[in-house]
């Protein structure tokens, strides 16, 4: 898929101290670099190598992806709602391209 697009689902509202579930999905081919095209030429490696989620500047979750992760990687993780603010999700590609998405949360 040519178009790379992140999707994020996180609660808009939560109570203080509540465990919230966050889901993050990105459309990405995750080319391992081990495949060849129809002419026998190697397809260059193109992977998301790193993902992180920052909650008001604090990293609450990060992951390094290695070569056999499937295309369109989907993540689910949990964190504790502490204060109102922003969740920033960042995907970093091998080439250095960065895709990011922001969502807001209100903690009562």
């Amino acid at each position, binding site marked *: 898929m040519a178009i790379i*697009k992140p999707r994020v*689902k996180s609660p808009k509202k939560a109570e203080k101290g509540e465990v919230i579930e966050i889901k993050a*999905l990105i459309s990405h081919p995750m080319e391992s670099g081990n495949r060849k095209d129809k002419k026998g030429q190697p397809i260059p490696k193109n992977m998301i190598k790193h993902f992180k989620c920052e909650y008001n500047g604090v990293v609450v979750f990060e992951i390094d*992806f290695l*070569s056999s*992760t499937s295309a369109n990687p989907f993540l*689910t993780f949990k*964190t504790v709602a502490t204060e109102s603010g922003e969740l920033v999700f960042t995907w970093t590609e091998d080439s250095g391209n960065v895709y990011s998405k922001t969502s807001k949360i209100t903690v009562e």
Partner: protein
Amino acid sequence: MNKTLLKITGVSSAVFITLSAMFALTTVSAEEVKRKSQKPLSADNPLDEIISGYEFRSSRTQALQDDDFENPAFLWVDNGEELWNTVEGAAGKSCASCHSDAEKSMNGVSASYPKYSEQAGKVINTEQRINKCRTDNMKAKAYKWESPDMLAITAYVTTQSKGVPVNVKTDGKAKASFENGEKLFYQRRGQLDLACSNCHEDNYGSYIRADMLSQGHSNGFPTYRLKWQGLGSLHRRFRGCNKNVRATPYGFGSQEYVDLELYLAWRGNGLPVESPSVRN
């Protein structure tokens, strides 16, 4: 403030890394599974009960389909929505120029396809209908079969019919196509000498190597197939099946496959549209 720092390295394999699920791995034995079935609409249907392909998949695959966010096919649907509103071609129109809100105008449309088209003079399916609109009304270039754009717009249009029972017409001018489709379904082919019916009528619910055979209904297409790591059309699935029995497949969008699609849709008349579904 609770600062949880999770650094995970060395995650290899895993089709989908669902960390929360890693701690709650449960196995469901095949015997316990009860499949939801319904009576076919037509008394001529060779199947006593019709069962959606969804029922033959594992609970984890079903869970992916049940949640519109987890369902990776919705990445295509999102792109399809953009294409719906994109003006293209010499006529300066987008899909939305004529059909405005897809949620209303496209509701139930795909459930009646493949359908006989007076303009085309033959039975055409959803993909061909979209391309016809593009070339005739928008004066734009037809999408290439199986291209990301074609899949995206088809998924977007089809998903508007989600939950609407499939109901294709097989009488009148569609009759010849329908009968040809039926013939193709029961025709043995390839080095393995198998017809569609040998697997999907005689042996559904049994394993063929590691994969469980379904009744081969078309209500979930276009489908996100985990094996493909992407969305694919019914004709891609047909080609895969044909290659598996060592037969030479027909082309994408060939009349043979459209006829077969019509016959399959009729077999599943009454099943709700599930597209975009998730299958393995």
